[in-house]
């Protein structure tokens, strides 16, 4: 490890930031339950998110130049103790997750009041914070088993959150149950993979794992471990043929949860994949390169098209977005498969840009649900005139979803295309552009429904309150902002990519 490792002499609050990043939301969750007040639940959750956002920004600023922070929990030295290890890659993810949470929560207040039964509100926000801290934990930790623990924390609370959509549609229960079964299978595979690694190396610390795997080289146990981890994480990130839990989960979850999960959960899983492929294992292993190129890449390309086609034919806005997410994950995986700095930059920056885009769109869905009860195309037709602000935000973020220049979506696709061309894989670049055309079709269908079809005669929809509009527009403006001011995101993503590859290079 080339980076300097600071001994554990953390004395000031500032040195404890990595721990506070997790502890604040993690303790806020039981606090909500103990307080037991429906009125206090939301403010506590929001305050915890804001504090997390501030901390994650401070951490990001510390590591953006390529530095690494390590934090030893309880003063136990790794590999015995658990280590939190922050570099540009996970600081970026931490920032994305907490920023999305801060934007989505104000929106959630109104939306959740409408979609979730009132008596469940306290538990809802407690579960939300658990899910949030689970996702943050997955991103921050430097311990492979700890990843599993946090993954389970976030997953279990996610099942609860999805099931809480049952007040609106009972199918949320089956969706949550299905996801529970499949998510558990995924987590099991993941932990089996870690078990294999432990068997082969005798350590669980990621940096240590990397060292030992690096010196002893690949063997059957390590390879099997890699395969199991890949499949386990692949399931969590809705890697194409294992995506089947996602459409129902996103469709029947409360809209605020769909917005939060779409922008963060799969992104964190992508981060885990990045971490394992580039830090724990490395592209120096032939088996990894081959797996990426012959297993992941074909499926990623398939996802870009098959899921987009499915999205084209959907008649429900929310479900369409779910399928579009599966297609977009294909782009991120494709970027990873390029195994170059540009490709990784594309994957990481798309992770962020797609996160804000989908947050905006799913929040708009929530706005339509609030006024129309449903988001089938024949429920939301003509809303361009009745809900002009929401619909305008849909247009902006829809453009970003397509990847129109001037929007965030363009930046990531441009970098991805450049990455493919850099390797001389121009057919791949062509496929990226061609699949973007499918995005034009499915986004256009929504715009047509919103603007070119008359509203239903019995529609009484009006514009949603400011508490929802402002978060929607923050996300929509972010889509434009990060499409024009690309330095911030690209610098962070480049730095993250260089960090991941730099570690991998040794």
């Amino acid at each position, binding site marked *: 490890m080339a980076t300097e490792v600071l001994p554990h002499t953390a004395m000031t609050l500032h040195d404890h930031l990595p721990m506070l990043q997790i502890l604040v939301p993690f303790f806020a969750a039981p606090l909500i339950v103990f307080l037991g007040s429906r009125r206090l639940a939301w403010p506590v959750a929001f305050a915890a998110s804001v504090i997390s956002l501030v901390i994650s920004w401070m951490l990001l600023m510390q590591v953006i130049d390529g530095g690494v922070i390590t934090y030893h929990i309880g003063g136990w030295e790794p590999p015995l103790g658990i280590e939190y290890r922050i570099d540009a890659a996970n600081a970026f993810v931490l920032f994305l997750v907490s920023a999305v949470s801060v934007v989505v929560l104000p929106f959630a207040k109104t939306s959740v009041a409408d979609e979730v039964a009132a008596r469940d509100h306290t538990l809802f926000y407690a579960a939300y914070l658990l899910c949030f801290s689970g996702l943050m934990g997955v991103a921050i930790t430097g311990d492979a088993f700890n990843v599993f623990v946090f993954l389970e924390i976030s997953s279990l609370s996610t099942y609860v959150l999805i099931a809480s959509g049952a007040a609106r549609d009972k199918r949320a229960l089956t969706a949550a149950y299905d996801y529970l079964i499949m998510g558990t299978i995924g987590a099991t595979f993941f932990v089996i993979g870690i078990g294999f690694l432990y068997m082969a190396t005798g350590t669980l610390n990621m940096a240590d794992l990397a060292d030992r795997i690096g010196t002893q080289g690949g063997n059957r146990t390590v390879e099997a471990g890699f395969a199991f981890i890949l499949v386990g994480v692949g399931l969590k990130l809705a890697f194409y043929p294992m995506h089947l839990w996602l459409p129902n989960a996103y469709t029947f979850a409360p809209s605020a949860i769909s917005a939060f999960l779409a922008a963060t959960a799969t992104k964190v899983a992508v981060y885990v994949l990045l971490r394992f492929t580039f830090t724990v294992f490395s592209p120096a292993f032939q088996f990894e390169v081959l797996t990426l190129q012959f297993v992941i890449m074909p499926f990623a390309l398939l996802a870009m098209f098959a899921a987009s086609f499915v999205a084209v034919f959907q008649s429900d806005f929310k479900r369409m977005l779910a399928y579009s997410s599966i297609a977009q994950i294909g782009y991120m995986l494709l970027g990873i498969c390029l195994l170059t700095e540009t490709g990784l930059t594309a994957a990481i920056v798309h992770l962020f840009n797609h996160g804000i885009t989908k947050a905006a769109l799913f929040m708009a869905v929530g706005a339509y649900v609030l006024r129309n009860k449903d988001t089938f195309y024949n429920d939301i037709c003509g809303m361009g005139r009745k809900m002009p602000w929401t619909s305008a935000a849909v247009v902006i973020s829809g453009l970003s979803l397509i990847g129109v220049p001037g929007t965030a979506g363009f930046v990531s696709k441009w970098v991805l295309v*450049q990455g493919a061309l850099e390797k001389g894989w121009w057919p791949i670049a062509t496929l990226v552009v061609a699949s973007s055309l499918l995005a034009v079709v499915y986004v256009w269908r929504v715009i047509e429904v919103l603007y070119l079809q008359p509203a239903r005669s019995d529609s009484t929809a009006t514009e949603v309150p400011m508490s929802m509009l402002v978060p929607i527009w923050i996300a929509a403006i972010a889509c434009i902002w990060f499409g024009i001011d690309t330095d911030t995101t690209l610098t962070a993503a480049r730095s993250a990519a260089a960090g991941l590859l730099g570690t991998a290079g040794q």
Partner: protein
Amino acid sequence: MFDVFPPVLVYLLGAVLLPLLPNAALRAGLSLLVPVIGGWLIWTLPEGNHAVVSLAGLDLTLIRNDKLASVFALIFSLAAFLSLLYAWHVRDRVQQTATLLYAGSAIGAVFAGDLISLFLFWEGTAIASVFLIWARGTEGAYHTGLRYLLIQVTSGVILLAGAALYWRETGSLAFEHMTLGSAATWLIFLAIGIKCGFPLLNNWLADAYPVATVTGTVILSAFTTKLAIYALARGFAGTELLIWIGVGMVLITVVQAMIENDLRRVLAYSLNNQLGFMVVGIGIGTELALNGAASHAVASVLYKAVLLMAVGAVLFRTGTAKASDLGGLYRTMPLTALFALVGSASIAAMPLFSGFVTKSLILSAAQHEHHYIAWAVLLFGSAAAVMHTAIRIPYAAFFGPDSGLRPHEAPAHMLLAMGLTAAFCVAIGVYPKALYALLPYAVDYKSYTTYHVVQQLQLVAFAALVFAVMMRAGLYPKSERSIVLDTDWVYRRLLPRVVGALSATMGAVWALVASAQERWLRGIILRLYRTHGPASRIALNWPTGSMVQWVAIVLGITLIVTFLS
């Protein structure tokens, strides 16, 4: 932020402000003010590269001003002003805003110094202009608009793909002269070709333009195709292939323009035809030829505008633009008829009218460079243009057999717009030096030589004679049959057969291609629906079983791949 104020921003600001104004006259006034301010900005814009912004690590040059760019930007401003004046009566916010955005994007594209900003404005023209077609409000217009949008956006996507490849190959995004050869330049060439109406890529033009609103067609005719001409002149001047493409454009549209009944569609074909002249000029690529292409673009924007305005006024007053339903309108619309005649004289390249001083540049260039076939085709095209547009339009609408219609004269603002445009046509013809001074290269050319004047007059006279003979003989397609035939039997027997057979074959081929395309597309969509639609296996709803099966399959594949390596 910028060292100069980009003219496109004036249009954007205008488009933002305009929908907020409550009063229609105020809106129309603002929309007229925008091109004036924009034009003044363009006039005073210093040469060179300005307003460089950084996007995703790329430097975008929003303003690259030289004489080639400024002449197109100026004519676009003028066209925007004239057509907005013509559209004074329009109360529809959408059309007014779309017009400003459309003109602004076209001007922005002309000044774009790199391929990315060119792409942005390129798509801007596509998206803004489609609203002028949709504004018609009919079901047909909606579908036509969608087709139009699809083709235009595709052109933009191809341009972007070309730009990406170009960057990869050369490391530069600057939009400069390029040579055909690599995939990148071919893609860019193709993207421009679609907008320019190259043969076989041109069907959107005659499909969409006549479907727009009365004012929309006038506006559409000015920008998209001329922007493509500019892009060709900038990027591919001197590409020999263009000469043949231009020749093809001149030839392929002649028959269609002759047999079409809808006068606005006739003008669309004829527009496509005139583009062929400019493309030939760009293909020749000498200074004289490029000057010719640029000046012909200017002239053609103006005379095409005045003709479309006249036909539009007829449509506005009578509700039809079909040749078979019109005729004899000069009695009640004398001024409109007069302006249409000026437009006709200009497209016919009569001495003292604009077409004469611009078309002769291209013809001379072809002669100088010994492209005799191209020269002959252009000459033929000129004669045909005299027939199918210059004589036929006034004849069918204003003179010709009386239809019995007695509409009012066009409204005052339309007359004013037409009058101004017609005045420009004459002014350029009478005093070409003013236009020549704006052209990209210094002009040392005399258009009013005896040779040119006589040649052109002969051409026009001959074409007029042919038209008269065909009309008298009832040989011109879709003409009156009441006149007794007493002319040469060869023409009587031969020409109708040739024209009839040609039109029948072409029509049949087009219909066949169109229906095959439609069937094919429908088949693909149906098949996709079956495999990817909501009821398909891919979109299965409650899928734990299949999911677990996939997990096993993926794990199996991964294990095999890792173990084998």
